[in-house]
């Protein structure tokens, strides 16, 4: 069994690379090359889905060791339940995105080289799979860098746009700062392994005998290193720039799963390498998660670019996942293993949920862009009548992300709340209080998410079109809709049948935390199917759905009995006597205006009204209203850092003379010093 599963995984990796090479083969036929590579990516994803399903259902742990003769680096890969869970998420989204891309890349035909998209896309997926399976620090860093570089190329795919280049550059710099910090963390831990392998298996033994001070250093290095990838505040700057810059099919994968590799890193480090952790680590992670969640959604709220809005919302959702991880760490450090598993389950459940609905939303944003060539929601409107299938799909995504029952977002939010409630088991009062305040933050965040997505859906899809782009929109190719339909049905499935997912996560928990809470958190409901329960209560989304449908049938029946012929007359909207116009509609800016006023300390809103008069100063010719929020993180966090780096660079500038001989001298001196150092 282990043999076959490992073969499946190797086949899928080979297929990915084959797909990327095929893309380059078809020199003249760009479209064919692109299609073949995407189809191969889809097939490869099916193979890795199969790997994950088989491995998770049997709880297998698979080792793949490629012994290269006399190699310094040991190419070890490990598919334990943690890895396979991430493989499942990555390959499901990878599959859907590949199918979606077949339609979406038509947008770039004759504009950009679509073969290149296929090439990088395949490597990107493969590198993510390798990141979550690497079992050696060196290999991990190599594939981590590969993932970063490949996704950088995807971000700057439309490199004619200078904004995209800037976004990509920012991404590259920040990702590399993160990578440097991670390597330092690995090196510090390596000093205590006592071997030269850099293997994760050695790191797993390091936690018990490493001095606490170094553990703390590693903790912070890791939280910043992976935090940059996860987009936690205030390290989020690249995320809302890079995700919108990338093509939508890539943003799906980046937002859906790539930023989750950081969560994978957190889990590996804090639950395997650095154990046992002191409680305050969990508290730090929890606070970081909560503040990212709140700030992420507050920035998403005022956003008018639909993809930037979704990117900010990814920060928010990552924050919620990190809340789950942080709670799990806290419970674990107090040795409350069952609760730790519950919180981990909440976090990992939200992880897969977010992957599904965020990919769905990015896909639908891609559909909007495909149909209207704009991402500004102020220019949209009325799309529900033009994109008849995209609209309900986007609505499902918006409902799911707003945690509306019975869709999947609700279940993970519910589990998060249950874990937070169980915080009363924590012995320390101050930690308890922080936990419950995080509960309040999650509640506020949930309400703000609903506002944000009501705005996103309502302004872009409802009422009248606000521009010609929106007026002329036509529905996108079927294949894009089918792939999005797949995700939408997944949203419904994951929401109504939670026990299936929880079984999968439970096998992760058994591996990671050595506790099996599945029997404790499932029960049978009146339909004699499994529902979820905790020590506080139980919940059965299935029965709620069934009740809702029954009540709908009854209501409809009664209403038809009362008045069999119900006539709907169609008139235009009453707007106090003038005929309705798009200019009269509420805009996205206006919709979130109350929030700008309430949270003015954060937003520092700046607005300006310019009025132009015609010749006699009585008639207004035109009025312009400009309003924006001040980027306080750029102003108070990034600018000082950038200033500091610039001034430091100025100080060492004299080293760069421009003469090649001087440079050779530097190298020579370094070499001599190294030889002396080693010889000693």
């Amino acid at each position, binding site marked *: 069994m282990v043999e076959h599963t490992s073969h499946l995984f190797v086949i899928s990796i080979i297929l990915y690379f084959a797909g990327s090479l095929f893309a380059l083969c078809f020199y003249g036929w760009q479209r064919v090359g692109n299609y073949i590579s995407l189809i191969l990516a889809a097939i490869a994803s099916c193979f890795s889905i199969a790997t994950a399903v088989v491995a998770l259902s049997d709880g297998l742990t698979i080792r793949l060791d490629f012994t290269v003769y006399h190699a310094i680096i040991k190419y070890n890969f490990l598919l334990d339940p943690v890895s396979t869970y991430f493989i499942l998420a990555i390959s499901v989204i990878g599959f859907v995105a590949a199918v979606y891309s077949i339609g979406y890349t038509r947008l770039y035909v004759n504009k950009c080289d679509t073969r290149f998209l296929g090439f990088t896309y395949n490597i990107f997926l493969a590198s993510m799979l390798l990141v979550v399976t690497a079992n050696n620090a060196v290999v991990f860093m190599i594939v981590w860098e590969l993932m970063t570089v490949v996704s950088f190329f995807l971000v700057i795919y439309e490199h004619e746009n200078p904004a995209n280049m800037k976004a990509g550059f920012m991404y590259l710099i920040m990702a590399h700062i993160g990578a440097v910090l991670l390597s330092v963390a690995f090196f510090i831990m390596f000093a205590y392994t006592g071997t030269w392998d850099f293997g994760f298996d050695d790191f797993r033994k390091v936690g018990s005998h490493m001095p606490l001070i170094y553990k703390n250093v590693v903790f912070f290095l890791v939280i910043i290193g992976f935090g940059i990838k996860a987009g936690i505040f205030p390290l989020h700057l690249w995320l809302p720039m890079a995700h919108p810059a990338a093509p939508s099919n890539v943003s799906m994968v980046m937002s859906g799963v790539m930023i989750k590799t950081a969560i994978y890193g957190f889990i590996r480090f804090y639950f395997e390498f650095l154990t046992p952790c002191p409680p305050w680590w969990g508290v730090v992670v929890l606070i970081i998660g909560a503040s990212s969640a709140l700030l992420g959604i507050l920035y998403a709220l005022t956003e008018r670019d639909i993809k930037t809005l979704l990117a900010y919302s990814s920060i928010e959702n990552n924050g919620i996942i990190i809340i789950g991880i942080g709670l799990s760490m806290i419970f674990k450090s107090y040795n409350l293993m069952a609760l730790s598993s519950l919180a981990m389950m909440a976090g990992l459940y939200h992880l897969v949920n977010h992957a599904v609905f965020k990919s769905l939303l990015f896909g639908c944003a891609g559909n909007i862009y495909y149909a209207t060539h704009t991402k500004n929601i102020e220019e949209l409107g009325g799309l529900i009548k033009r994109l008849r299938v995209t609209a309900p799909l986007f609505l499902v995504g918006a409902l799911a992300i707003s*945690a509306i029952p019975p869709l999947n977002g*609700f279940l993970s939010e519910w589990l998060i709340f249950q874990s937070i409630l169980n915080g009363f088991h924590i012995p320390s009062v101050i930690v308890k209080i922080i936990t419950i305040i995080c509960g309040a933050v999650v509640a506020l965040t949930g*309400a703000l998410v609903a506002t944000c997505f009501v705005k996103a859906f309502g302004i872009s899809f409802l009422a009248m079109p606000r521009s010609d782009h929106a007026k002329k929109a036509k529905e996108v190719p079927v294949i894009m809709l089918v792939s999005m339909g797949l995700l939408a049905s997944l949203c419904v499935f994951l929401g109504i049948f939670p026990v299936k997912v929880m079984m999968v996560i439970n096998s992760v928990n058994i591996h990671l935390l050595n506790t099996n809470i599945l029997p404790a958190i499932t029960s049978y409901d009146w339909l004699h199917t499994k529902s979820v329960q905790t020590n*506080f209560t139980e*919940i059965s989304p299935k029965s709620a759905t069934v009740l809702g449908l029954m009540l709908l049938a009854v209501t409809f029946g009664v209403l038809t009995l009362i008045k069999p012929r*119900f006539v709907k007359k169609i008139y235009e*909207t009453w707007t106090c006597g003038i005929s309705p116009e798009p200019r009269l509609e509420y805009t996205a800016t206006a*919709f979130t205006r109350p929030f700008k006023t309430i949270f003015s300390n954060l937003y520092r809103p700046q607005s300006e009204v310019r009025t132009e008069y015609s010749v006699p100063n009585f008639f207004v010719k035109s009025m312009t209203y400009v309003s924006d929020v001040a980027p306080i993180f750029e102003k108070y966090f990034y600018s000082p850092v950038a200033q500091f780096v610039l001034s430091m660079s100025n100080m060492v500038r004299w080293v760069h003379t421009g003469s090649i001989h001087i440079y050779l001298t530097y190298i020579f001196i370094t070499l001599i010093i190294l030889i002396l150092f080693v010889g000693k």
Partner: protein
Amino acid sequence: MTAEIILPILQILVVVGFSPLVKGFINKIEARLQCRRGASMFQPYYNLVKLFRKDAVVSETSSWIFRATPYITFISVLIISLLVPVLSSQVPLNFTGDIILIIYLFALARFFLVLTSLDTGSAFGGMGGSREMMVSSMAEPAMILSFFTVALTVNSTNLSNITSTLLNNSILLLNPSLILAFAALTIVLIAETGRIPVDNPFTHLELTMIHEGMMLEFSGRYLALVEWASSMKLLLLLTILVNIFFPWGIAGGLTFSGLIIAFALYVVKIGFFAFLIVIVEMSFAKIRLFRIPNLLGTAFILSILAVISLYVVR
């Protein structure tokens, strides 16, 4: 088994049947206190009957969202009425969900109502929707934390369990933390149901309304369903408040006589609280829109103090 079928039906009938009366009662008392005669207590029923008989006018800019919303709103409130203990603390369907599900089902109804307000393309609707989202977002943390306080006191988030535990062990109710939670929840209830210091349910003046603004374009059956849902929401929130903090009189089991007594006491309790709402509405003016966060901030702080005092003193 029969009781398990009869009780949910009874519960739906009580909530659906009496919710317009609560609204009518509040209006009537308010009118009497303002030295007016006021409309009959049964006026909301007459309105509903009239509206159900009428055809509807639908805006040409609107889409299927507009036509689906009244049903979705109504159904989500109906599901809630199955989950809340009304007459008996033992709700047969209580395994379906807990207080968090109830809060999010209200969110479902609100989500669609606000979408509809944007659907017709009228600026009034958008204004109402935007403000509704603001008020509910500000109210959400206070609501969740106050319910958490209750849940932590009795170790359950299931309303049936909460009510029966508090009924059998009333000394738990003499808990200062619960008093704070009760105060916070009262403010939240007033905000959520759009009563006076926050929103004026009687006005149709465009610039001041919140909830009514979203319902401007509904007519006929649609308006009836939405109106009915909003009065059911008022009754349900009152019921939750009453049955958590004053559970006395609610039937513990499913006996006939118990249910009769429970019903009588339920009417008295709801009547009393409706009267309190009237008093609040009479003694305050509607506050400015941007003062609402202060009010709800107070509620939030009360709720957070509730949890903290529970944790520290426990």
